[in-house]
């Protein structure tokens, strides 16, 4: 990892983690039986959905999404080889990105059975190939599996075993206690600022809605939003309400998964990166995406084939999300 590019700095009202974000190895070393069941803090306590500011001299990160076997509890056919190669590819990017985001769905597990941790073991084992921090979005399979499911304390589906495992192993180690959170990034020279906003559309609450509106109101040069479901997956509880909030604020790019493919919808400012090992639904191969700020301030996106490193698609947008050359 290019540690020299990644420095944590305490920032105003933002929560400062008690320790720096752990490496992937730290995440995996965390014993499962030591994890507390997820519950929100007391109402009087400050929710921990805001990260400290990450100071980065370059804005460059990878996107990986949707990794699950074909069938429920089908751990024997988890796509371990594919996701391992994808994370190896990300690690081999030059320069190596300091961090990555994942768009959700890391398991296909029955909430009444016990395959959650076995599948997360495989995912996180593969993710160790990349030494940088990975900011993980929550997918519908981290709730009940249904796109319409809604998880978390006080929601209709409550705290499922899938939700608990995801939160404990992929979110809590980052210093957050909600599956929705924001990471602030800034150029040390002051040339730009950015925020990476992770929405949990399958853990949608009024608290998240209020947080999202306030978070998006914070001015930054770039706003990247990560949400598992795309704009047309409106049965997910948080898609339509979060879209309404997003429409009120500047948006550079909405990064989604859910569909097991790669696609770009410029008019919606939306890119689908869901080809991370889950059964492919189109003709596009498995792969990942890379986001990079160019010297002219534009954001360049490139999607890569995980085997050949062939470019599956590339395009550029301005900070406002408008297409550019």
């Amino acid at each position, binding site marked *: 990892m290019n540690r020299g590019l990644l420095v944590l700095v305490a920032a105003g009202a933002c929560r400062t983690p008690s320790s720096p974000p752990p490496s992937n190895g730290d995440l995996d070393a965390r014993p499962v039986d030591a994890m507390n069941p997820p519950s929100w803090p007391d109402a009087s306590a400050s929710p921990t959905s805001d990260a400290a500011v990450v100071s980065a001299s370059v804005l460059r990160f990878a996107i990986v999404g949707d990794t699950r076997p074909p069938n429920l509890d089908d751990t024997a056919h988890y796509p371990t080889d594919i996701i391992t190669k994808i994370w190896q590819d990300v690690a081999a990017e030059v320069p190596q990105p300091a961090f990555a985001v994942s768009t959700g769905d890391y398991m296909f597990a029955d909430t009444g059975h016990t395959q959650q941790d076995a599948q997360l073991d495989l995912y996180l084992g593969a993710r160790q190939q990349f030494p940088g921090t990975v900011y993980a979005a929550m997918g519908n399979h981290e709730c009940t599996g249904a796109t319409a499911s809604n998880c978390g304390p006080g929601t209709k589906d409550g705290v499922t075993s899938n939700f608990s495992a995801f939160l404990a192993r992929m979110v809590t180690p980052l210093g957050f206690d909600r599956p929705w959170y924001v990471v602030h990034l800034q150029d040390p020279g002051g040339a730009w600022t950015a925020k990476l906003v992770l929405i949990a559309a399958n853990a949608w609450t009024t608290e998240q809605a209020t947080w999202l509106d306030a978070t998006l109101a914070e001015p930054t040069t770039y706003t990247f939003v990560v949400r598992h479901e795309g704009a047309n997956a409106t049965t997910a509880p948080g898609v339509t309400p979060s879209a309404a909030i997003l429409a009120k604020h500047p948006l550079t790019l909405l990064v989604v998964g859910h569909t*097991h493919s790669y696609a770009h919808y410029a008019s919606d400012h939306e890119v689908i990166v869901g080809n991370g090992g889950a059964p492919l*639904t189109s003709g596009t191969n498995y792969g990942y995406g890379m986001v990079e700020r160019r010297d002219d301030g534009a954001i360049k996106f490139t999607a890569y084939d995980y085997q050949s490193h062939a470019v599956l698609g590339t395009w550029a947008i301005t900070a406002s999300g408008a297409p550019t050359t």
Partner: protein
Amino acid sequence: MTARLLVVAALSAIGCAHHEPAAGALAVPIATRALTVDGAQEGPDWNQRAARVVLAGGDGPARPFSDARFLRDDGALYVGLYAADEDVRSSDAFDVDLGELALRVDVRGRVTPAVPGVKVAIDVDEETTIDRPDDFDEEWKVVLVVPQAALGPHDGGTTAHVARCDTPKDGVTRCGAWSGRLALE
């Protein structure tokens, strides 16, 4: 949550072929318990015990992805089929040849031609919209139950061929297939 459709095929007579077991045949395990024929292929028998093949297309696994799993009991061969599919159409189907038994199973659960004793169950996610190209679908699954008697005298083995073509949103039709021999003893 899934909506499941169980269709029992009507009766019809189909010729069967005689096949010798061959080295390299895919051994079809006996299920350890009665299988629920609901299309979903859930449980340890389907996930851990079944013989599984991934359909190939071009130079690797077919895209869109498909796989086939095989189990048996004393009387029947169970074929589990998985189809990843971003745009499910009512014309989507698998072609399944077992010996000289050539079946076509579509996403509505129709089996053609109808064969005595053949059952099929389809598992389609409740969020899947058939013949709605304006949204994204995900997958559909099939469990096909074929009486071993319908395979004819097979001496413990039979040829098998599973194929599927699909046209994703890019309009390009792509096909995948697997051919081999199944060992049934």
